[in-house]
């Protein structure tokens, strides 16, 4: 990579940072410092604005860089990710979006705790929300690190470390100063940038092939070195039954996890009504669907124009396929067009990471302050404002996420995101669905359901080949691998549902009929919604 690339990319990225910081300052200038303002941006965003913000929150660097990279390297098996990421939105739209908007105030725990003994349920749901957010943050920050390694033309450890720290520091500033309002606007700006970038590149790929998708596909198959197998499933996940189950596990995690992601759920609180929540989900599905269709084209485009070997040489996990594709589409490494396009794409990817990271940090700081702090605070202790606690929590979560990201920096980001989804699907979704739809659900059921999904999911990851026992592990020297799959979803999601059912049927507590009636009436009509 030449100096021109770096300078221009850094310049564009500094521009984005400056604009977002300006938004943050401008927004926080007129803020009231109330909880509704901080967690939900005053609940006055329109469905279209929120739809763009949801899309901005969801279309992460993992999709833009990770999924396209997987498609470039493994063809069809990468496409399976795109499908899972999109279909997941039907779960959100059908079962969650409107009901959560009607029942809750700021967090996932609000919805669950309304029917139950508040304290234990809040602590459980808060803990799992924070865990999911931190995993998600790690994935995004690892992405930031690998992007910089590419930009600076090497794998300089110091550069990656400082990028991760820089991204972490920026997100803390956005969140603790600007709250939900600033975060939302950053996500909207980012969604527009990312979609424009993807549209430009896709158009250029199609122009290169004169609009002939068939030629694009067959050339990709030819150049990948795998022939027709490249266009069929099985290259990455078809080797043996372990790999197959691993993929089924991932597929389940993707489709069920989205509805349990705290930063996605909290987005529905930023609109005034359930109808607006529904419309923002419809907007989001349109935007996200179009985006994933484009990632497929970009992945195949990278396989043809850059070549799988060149992608693999730049980054073993394929995370740098899109920037390399942009370089080629612009006219090659030495042309102005190539330099500009490369810089633009790199800057967009950075912007993506920043926006997603801000969203996840906000959601986790809300869980810490609104759920954990409010429940664990000593009754006689000094009462601090929840918003102040949330701002401080953002700093703490930033520090934890930075530390973990530095540990996990060589893992594929799409895989890391898959992990976050698995934990969300195991710990958050069962308890959410049970509380919304099951009349006899009890406090014990809720608590068991959260821990019954969270603990197995985390333990299975620790015992998996990701952590130890294989050459690509985080700790290759240690061997404590007892679970063969990289993604725990296949086992831990059913366990989460099972634990919730078991806890409910064994609990001596009589389910509170009136509380259930209240939840149901509020969920479906919006009565008493704030």
């Amino acid at each position, binding site marked *: 990579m030449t100096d021109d690339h770096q300078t221009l990319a850094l310049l564009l990225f500094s521009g984005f940072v400056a604009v977002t910081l300006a938004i943050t300052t401008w927004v926080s200038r007129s803020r009231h410092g*109330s*909880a*509704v303002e901080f967690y939900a941006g*005053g*609940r*006055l965003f*329109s*469905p279209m604005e929120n*739809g763009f913000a949801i899309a901005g929150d969801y279309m992460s660097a993992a999709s833009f860089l990770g999924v396209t990279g997987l498609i470039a390297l493994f063809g*069809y098996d990468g496409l399976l990710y795109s*499908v*899972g990421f*999109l*279909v997941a*939105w*039907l*779960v959100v*739209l*059908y079962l969650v979006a409107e009901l959560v908007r009607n029942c809750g*105030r700021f967090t996932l725990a609000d919805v669950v705790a309304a029917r139950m003994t*508040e304290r234990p349920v809040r602590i459980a749901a808060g803990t799992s929300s924070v865990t999911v957010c931190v995993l998600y943050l790690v994935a995004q920050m690892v992405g930031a690190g690998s992007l910089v390694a590419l930009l600076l033309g090497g794998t300089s450890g110091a550069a990656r470390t400082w990028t991760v720290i820089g991204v972490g520091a920026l997100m803390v500033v956005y969140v603790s100063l600007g709250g939900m309002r600033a975060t939302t606007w950053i996500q909207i700006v980012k969604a527009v940038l990312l979609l424009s970038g993807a549209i430009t590149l896709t158009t250029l790929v199609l122009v290169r092939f004169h609009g002939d998708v*068939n030629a694009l*596909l067959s050339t990709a*198959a030819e150049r990948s070195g795998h022939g*027709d197998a490249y*266009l*069929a*499933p*099985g290259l990455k*996940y*078809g080797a043996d039954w372990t790999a*197959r189950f691993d*993929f089924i596990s991932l*597929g389940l995690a993707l*489709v069920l996890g989205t509805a349990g992601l705290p930063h996605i759920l909290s987005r529905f609180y930023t*609109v*005034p*009504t359930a*109808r*607006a929540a529904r419309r923002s989900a*419809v*907007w989001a*599905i*349109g*935007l996200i*669907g*179009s985006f994933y269709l484009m990632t497929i084209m970009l992945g195949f485009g990278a396989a043809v124009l850059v070549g799988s070997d060149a992608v693999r040489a730049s980054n073993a996990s394929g995370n740098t396929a899109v920037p390399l594709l942009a370089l080629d589409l612009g006219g090659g490494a030495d042309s102005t067009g190539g330099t500009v396009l490369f810089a633009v794409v790199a800057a967009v990817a950075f912007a993506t990471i920043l926006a997603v990271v801000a969203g996840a940090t906000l959601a986790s700081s809300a869980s810490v302050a609104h759920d954990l702090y*409010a429940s664990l605070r000593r009754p006689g202790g000094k009462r601090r*404002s*929840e918003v102040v606690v949330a701002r401080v929590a953002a700093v703490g979560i930033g520090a934890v996420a930075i530390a973990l990201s530095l540990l996990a920096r060589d893992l594929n980001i799409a895989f890391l995101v898959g992990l976050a989804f698995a934990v969300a699907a195991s710990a958050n979704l069962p308890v959410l669905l049970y509380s919304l739809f099951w009349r006899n659900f009890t406090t014990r059921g809720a608590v068991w359901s959260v821990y019954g999904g969270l603990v197995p999911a985390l333990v299975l990851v620790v015992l998996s080949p990701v952590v130890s026992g294989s050459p690509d592990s985080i700790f290759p020297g240690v061997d404590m691998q007892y679970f063969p799959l990289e993604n725990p979803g296949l086992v831990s999601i059913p366990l989460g549902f099972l634990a919730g059912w078991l806890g409910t049927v064994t609990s001596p507590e009589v389910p509170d009929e*009136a509380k259930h*009636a*209240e939840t149901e*009436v509020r969920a*479906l*009509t*919006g*009565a*008493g919604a*704030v």
Partner: protein
Amino acid sequence: MDKYDGGEAARLRPDDPWYDALASGWGELGGAGSRASAVPHARREPADRTATAAEIYLEVQRSPAFQEVRSRYRRFVFPGVAVFFTWYVAYVVAATTAPDLMARPVAGAVNVAMLAGLGQFLSTFLLTWAYARHARLRRDRAALELRWNTQELTRETER
């Protein structure tokens, strides 16, 4: 799809979100923001009125109007979820366990797997449209009425 979404949202835009806020939040002390900021730490309603409010919610829940809204919602959503979830799981399982079937060419470079993948995208868009339409035509009006009535009743108990 994008175009359609834009069109739909644009068509519906005039009555949203302000229409909702006005129609349902009328008389609620001037909107959500100021109300909540007045009592930032209130988590639930005060305990002294839950007894009566609980009765109201139970009563509303047993009312035929609510039962109708709920069954319309469930009759649409549960089969819908069953359909797309089965279709998705079948797709994932087929992709991992029956690669030969998925690799069968259909036309040019396009094979069964490609069609199935695009089919997932298409079905997602279609089901999104169907849900939004069903909710708008079959549920929204009745739900809004119920919300209005329920809030009237609970407000009376507060006085």
